């Protein structure tokens, strides 16, 4: 009796584990089978590097979206990465552990806020602020970058904290014993030692920023245009898919799948490089 139930559970769990894997496989195969033929038929260069996106007229150039995605992501990194790493350093090196134990979970709560709520705050608070003080329509590249910059904070902070904490205590003690100040120790010993973990946190955060959709649709204005400044509206790759999928048929639908292929490749590259950087660290030890 216990043996059979054990076996049943084993099989069941195996099936569950494989179902997750097969879901990934299914999605990958589906997106690629739907999108790749279109890319070849339409022309790889024409698709990636043309600025004309007009599905009704059969024009499918995603270059403005690629550029916008890069800018929004870079903007989010410029805001989120320094804040996140600085926050992690502060929490690990400059405050007592008890304080960190309160603040860290609260920051991680940020990750639990649904993205539509971020978008809503962006539309209601951030966009009017930008419109009134900086000009432009408010819904802009800048608004998207700020919102995403905040959204990626928990990823950067918690992974960075883990990797800073993983630096052996003896490193710090050695440095302090040589007469270095806490800041000198952080700058010259702890951060370099935790470098790969911090880099991985930033790459993972980039993956999240590239993939985020709802908040971005709400705050960036979604114009298909290469932005001339941070105050202009932009449309990212994810927003392009989400906005138009409801109406897309035929070629248009395939073009959106092809957009998905491009996104998929970008995020795969980011994830692989994150795990590569992480492995590097383990290998060094």
């Amino acid at each position, binding site marked *: *009796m216990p043996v059979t*139930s054990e076996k*049943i*559970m084993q099989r069941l769990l195996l099936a569950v584990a494989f179902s997750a894997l097969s879901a990934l496989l299914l999605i990958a195969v589906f997106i690629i089978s739907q999108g790749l033929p279109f890319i070849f038929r339409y022309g790889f260069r024409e698709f990636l590097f043309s600025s004309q996106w*007009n*599905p*009704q007229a059969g024009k499918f150039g995603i270059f403005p979206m690629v550029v916008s995605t890069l800018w929004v992501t870079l903007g989010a990194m410029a805001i989120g990465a320094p804040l996140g790493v600085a926050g992690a350093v502060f929490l690990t090196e400059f405050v007592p552990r008890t304080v960190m134990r309160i603040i860290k979970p609260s920051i991680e709560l940020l990750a639990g806020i649904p993205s539509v709520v971020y978008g809503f705050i962006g*539309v209601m608070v951030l*966009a*009017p602020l930008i*419109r009134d003080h900086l000009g432009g*329509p*408010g*819904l802009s590249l800048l608004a998207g970058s700020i919102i995403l910059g905040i959204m990626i904070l928990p990823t950067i902070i918690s992974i960075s904290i883990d990797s800073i904490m993983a630096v052996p205590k003896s490193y710090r003690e050695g440095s302090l014993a040589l007469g270095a100040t806490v800041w000198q120790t952080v700058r010259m010993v702890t951060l370099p030692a935790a470098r790969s973990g911090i880099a991985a946190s930033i790459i993972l955060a980039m993956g999240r920023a590239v993939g985020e959709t709802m908040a971005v*649709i*709400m705050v960036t*204005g*979604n*114009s*298909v*245009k290469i932005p001339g400044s941070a105050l*202009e*509206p932009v*449309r990212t790759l994810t927003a392009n898919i*989400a*906005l*138009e999928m*409801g*109406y*897309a*048929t035929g070629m*248009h639908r395939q073009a959106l799948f092809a957009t998905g292929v491009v996104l998929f490749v970008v995020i795969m590259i980011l994830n692989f490089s994150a795990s590569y950087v992480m492995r590097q660290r383990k290998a060094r030890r």
Partner: protein
Amino acid sequence: MKKKALYLLFSVALVFSAGCGKNKQSITLAGSTAFQPFAEKLAEQYMTSNPGATITVQGGGSAVGIQSALSGAAQIGMADLVNLPPEAKDLSATVVARDGIAVVINPANKVNNLTTGQIRDIFNGKIKNWKEAGGADKTITVVSREAGSGTRTSFEEIITGIELVGEALIQESNGTIRETVANDAGAIGYLSHGLLNEKIKAVQIDGQDCTTECIMTQKYLLVRPIFLLTKAQPGAEVQRMIDYILSPEGQQTIQQNGLITAK
């Protein structure tokens, strides 16, 4: 003990699947998001008077409405286009309501009337400042819908000659267009006439107000029909549902909620 739990699980699953199998009169409507709320209301009323019927209403947009009526995924497709695309020619189309498209601006904007030509120039990006259209010196923020939207397609087909300016903000629903225009003093957008409220202002087009009366008398230009699409020979149940929507009771519901009746 564990075995018992498994049996329980199976029996629960069996009960559920048995429930699904009982195929009562089930009709699915899918398509136009502009008509979706009205369809939901109508379905609710229909189900109260016909307890046996199950009506499911799904959105997805006009293109989805046409596609799902063609493929049979939905018995009734909903589409809000001025002209139905060629692939819909095998479907039987019934106009069940009409909807005005209001061109809306921020209430702070002093402009009250725009000509068709001015609207075309604004959405083309030829007019970039409100002072060129009789307003204050303020940059125009054009707000439009995504490509393929029934409202946008109808708007562009009626105004004609629009090639949307690149700077235009794109919003994915009537509701977000309304919010954007309500928040931006320089914005102009368009949305379903049933969704007008005090936060935004509808302009006159060529001197005609966007009111139910002007739409009924066909003085107002921006009007689109709402089609229900079915296979050429719809089943008796489907026909009964459409007849209900066209009945005085159904049409009254449509009118009470801000759309304009079919006739």
